[in-house]
């Protein structure tokens, strides 16, 4: 299955050279997707704890299962205002 990646701020910049989609085995979880992203960009490893993840606009835990066509958003600590 294919998941699209929406990354923001510093995480977006770290992934700038990477494709914006991830191909994952069926039944893959949010944690699996993050691990695949870490493999592409090891600089993400220290950001694992501070980056929140959202599936189709809803914050999710890492154990959540992804589906084909989902958007996985990578949300570093915010800085609005």
């Amino acid at each position, binding site marked *: 299955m294919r998941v699209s990646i*929406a990354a*923001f*701020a*510093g995480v*977006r910049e770290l992934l700038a050279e990477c494709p914006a989609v991830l191909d994952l085995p069926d039944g893959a979880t949010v944690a699996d997707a993050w691990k695949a992203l870490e493999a592409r960009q090891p600089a993400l490893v220290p950001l694992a704890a501070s980056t929140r993840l*959202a599936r189709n*606009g809803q914050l999710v835990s890492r154990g959540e299962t992804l589906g084909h066509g989902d958007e996985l*958003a990578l*949300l*570093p*600590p*915010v*800085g*609005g*205002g």
Partner: protein
Amino acid sequence: MLAIVREPIDPARLDAALRDDVFGAIVTFLGIVRSRADDGRSVWALEYEAHEFMATAEFEKIASEAYQRFPDVRLTIVHRIGRLDVGEIAVAVLAGSPHRGAAFDACEYAIDEVKSRAPIWKKELYADGEERWKTNACGPHERAG
């Protein structure tokens, strides 16, 4: 109005849109790009980005919470994204209410929650050519600025 926008924010238009005959008070907060970072470095511009769908949904939640806490208050929350120069308005929060107390409280509640919760990011662009993503380190009840 609860929105992420790309064009300059016009507070007079937001004020006019919020007016209601039952409101005796409208409190307006404007967050403005300033020329000095917290560490004193000279800033020439900020770059904002957002997860627009999630940010707008968060504004809706904040407005709904404010309505629970401060009855009869109505909020406008507009945040601009893109590159903003010093002096430009990055965010506007307006709270309309029959009385000023609730309007002040709701406006402060809303901007604190926007800063701590909304998926919006800003990069400081410094005069010396460096740049850095800036995180809102403070909790909602510590107001650095």
